[in-house]
């Protein structure tokens, strides 16, 4: 006997949302109206378009030889596939298969496959621990305790007006695009946690609200890695390293007279931040 067809729509039935829009602007206007809290949280719209056709186009254009050479540089050949991976628009396995086609496979796979593996790893940790990833997984290795860190994000940070060049530029980019290069995620996190003594948790939540690829696994565990509650030591860097990855765009300073918290050698930075 054939299955019963669905009931004709009744007034109490859930009402589907529209799928056809005349333009992206029309879709954005609909979202603003339907999700006013999101619009109020921050009204920018990213240039990164959603959907599998766009994801496949981006996947088809990746150049992993260039990625291997330049991925650590801010203007390097990163793939920006992470928003699609987060939402399952692309699977890790199919992206890996494309990497293998480009010669990144084998018993010692290339850096790109290793980056995909980080996402697989974080998913495994999240599946194992669940919402526990929202709490410190280990003790701090900074010489400080949980109570030493503020739970409120400073207003100058939220406004992107700290005066520290890479911080303010990164905050603006996060707000406008929903994306940050991994180097800048780590460096901004190190500034927030270690230079401003803000707990990683409210800062991770702040990122999650903006990042198109933000999920509890990759995002919160990366913040814990920088903090040292999911690593052997806190992540730090110095201005020399910042200048190198940014191609000289950032100094790490706050104007000509203030070299900022990451000036000097790594020993200098360690001493300044952790005593």
């Amino acid at each position, binding site marked *: 006997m054939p299955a019963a067809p669905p009931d004709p729509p009744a007034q109490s039935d859930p009402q589907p949302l529209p799928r056809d829009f005349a333009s992206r602007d029309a879709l954005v206007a609909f979202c603003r109206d339907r999700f006013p809290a999101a619009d109020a949280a921050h009204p920018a719209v990213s240039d990164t378009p959603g959907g599998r056709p766009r994801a496949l186009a981006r996947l088809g254009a990746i150049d992993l030889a260039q990625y291997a050479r330049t991925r650590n540089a801010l203007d390097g050949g990163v793939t920006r596939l992470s928003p699609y991976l987060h*939402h399952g628009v692309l699977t890790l396995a199919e992206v890996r298969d494309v990497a293998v086609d480009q010669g990144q*496979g084998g018993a010692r796979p290339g850096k790109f496959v290793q980056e995909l593996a980080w996402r697989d790893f974080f998913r495994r940790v999240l599946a194992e621990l669940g919402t526990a990833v929202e709490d410190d997984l280990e003790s701090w290795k900074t010489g400080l305790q949980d109570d030493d860190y503020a739970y409120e994000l400073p207003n100058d940070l939220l406004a992107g007006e700290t005066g520290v060049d890479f911080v303010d530029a990164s905050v603006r980019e996060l707000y406008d695009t929903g994306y940050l290069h991994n180097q800048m995620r780590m460096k901004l996190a190190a500034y927030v946690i270690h230079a401003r003594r803000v707990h990683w948790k409210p800062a991770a*939540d702040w990122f999650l609200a903006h990042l198109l690829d933000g999920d509890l696994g990759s995002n919160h565990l990366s913040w814990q890695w920088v903090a040292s509650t999911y690593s052997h030591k806190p992540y730090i860097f110095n201005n020399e390293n910042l200048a190198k990855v940014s191609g000289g765009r950032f100094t790490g300073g706050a104007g000509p007279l203030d070299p900022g918290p990451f000036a000097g050698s790594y020993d200098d930075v360690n001493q300044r931040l952790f005593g």
Partner: protein
Amino acid sequence: MPALTWLHHEDLNPQSPAWAAARQAHGLDTPAVVIFDRPRIERRGYTLKRVVFLYECAIETGAELYDGDPLDLLQKLLAQHHAEALYATRTADPRITAQGDRLGVAWVDPPAFVTLPGPADLKRFSRYWRKAERLAGRPTGQA
């Protein structure tokens, strides 16, 4: 036996493993739905760019789109479609997993990135990578 597929926030893919499995088991006309998880969007303070990106991904799945609490809406949609089975792709996300488990979801595994021999040591990436490295570079189907 009619079925329904739930394309949750981490499965916004017209080639969803769950939808493919549901179609194979219950027929090609098995419907799929996306539900914008409003409680999550509001509690997490998602900004507009995240919502727009979600919406664009959802449109391209070809599924029906809804907005609200997934637990509540899925119960109503299951009744509306006389569906006795609900399919979804397995995810690590704890909220989606809890919602699906409450509804008795038939979880469908996505293609594995790597299948490790035995349990993974998740204390550090380096420990996981020691086991995964020689397998991660093999294409799907040659694990």
